[in-house]
């Protein structure tokens, strides 16, 4: 099975690689469109800034490449947000695969921004989430969020409920970092690896 991690100008690409290696999978890190297109599965990770990252993708035509992928794709954190239509971060037009807006959290007393740390995910749906993951803690680090909507497959609460995961067709996405979420995270990555291509 050929697993590709899109190696783009943002952090945590290595963390995702290490997490897959702990599951005995050796991913390919690349930004080569042909290799990405020929993969069985594609992981689109990200910690970084939306505007800068979208510009980087567009310069390489990777925006079009990602949009046209038909194999299972997993967007993580910023990767999930970039799958959406628009982000308030740097007023960025994103890939437009999932018709959702990405908004900035408004901090309030006792609830800081970024939302940083371990939070429980619930109302799990779809193929990524085995039942034992319901209510488990996963690791989040982000200042922008997607409201719950028709594509929401996991929810969590911080300041208000928001989407911890999304899915539309072959595009799966988590706001949390499965690669850093201990055993529940490993289970979710394993489910992604098991998806039929």
């Amino acid at each position: 099975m050929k697993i590709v991690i899109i190696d783009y100008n943002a952090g945590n690409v290595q963390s995702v690689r290490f997490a897959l290696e702990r599951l005995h999978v050796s991913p390919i890190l690349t930004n080569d469109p042909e290799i990405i297109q020929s993969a069985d599965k594609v992981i689109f990770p990200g910690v970084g800034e939306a505007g800068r990252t979208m510009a980087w993708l567009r310069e390489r035509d990777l925006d079009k490449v990602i949009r046209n992928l038909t194999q299972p794709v997993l967007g993580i954190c910023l990767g999930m947000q970039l799958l959406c239509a628009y982000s308030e971060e740097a007023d960025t037009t994103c890939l437009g695969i999932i018709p959702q807006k990405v908004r900035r959290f408004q901090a309030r007393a006792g609830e800081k921004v970024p939302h940083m740390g371990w939070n429980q995910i619930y109302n799990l749906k779809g193929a990524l989430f085995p039942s034992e993951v319901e209510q488990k803690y996963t690791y989040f680090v982000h200042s922008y969020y997607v409201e719950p909507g028709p594509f929401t497959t996991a929810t969590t609460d911080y300041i208000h409920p928001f989407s911890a995961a999304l899915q539309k067709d072959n595009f799966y996405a988590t706001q949390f970092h499965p690669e850093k979420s201990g055993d529940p995270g490993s289970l979710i990555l394993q489910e992604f690896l098991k998806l039929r291509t």
Partner: protein
Amino acid sequence: MLAKRIIPCLDIKDGRTVKGVNFVDLRDAGDPVEQAQIYSEQGADELVFLDISATHEKRKTLADLVRRVAAQVNIPFTVGGGISTVSDVALLLEHGADKVSINSAAVRNPAVIDELASHFGSQCITVTVDARQIDQAWWIHLNGGRIATDRRLQEWTLEAADRGAGEILFTSMDHDGTKGGFANTITAELARLLPIPIIASGGAGEMQHFADAFVKGQADAALAASVFHFNEISIPDLKTFLHQKNIPVRR
């Protein structure tokens, strides 16, 4: 509900874990990779590595250590010590660090926070501050507390947050190594003042101190070193204790 985080800190010198008492008299406490794995299995929520020997020639040693830790552990970790440039941060993130912390370099050149935050996102930029109370006011100190500055703790951390820091790791030099509890009054003041998460550090000696840091100090996370390194407090016992006090923790 967002859990309060328990963070063991591993001070690193020449690739080994050390912990000073009030930042002097360093004691060797073991192999960082092995410790990281143990802490991760015990339920630590995050790890912090502070390279107290960090110099440019040692940077590669640190990066190698980061890679070995990243390969082993499935929880987030922060790396700090002598970081001052975009290329320092890029190297550590490329080797698998989730966040980096900056301290003296940010005080000397605050614009570096803006630069790093815009390059990598605020989420992976922790600003670490060491402060001491002198005549009722809290003052920022540099170089492990050896150099006093004219920056006040509250004013500086607020500026750091405005410039794009993702969280503040605050060590009270007055409490560090005393095992008498965290600096809860000033931590609570910072928690009210700052729009970003705050990690309390310095003074952990018993489990109640962690509960106090979260309830009285309103900290988002609590960091400690020697109580964990020398098995004075076990993380599973601490999590159970906090849970019984109705403090949300990941178990």
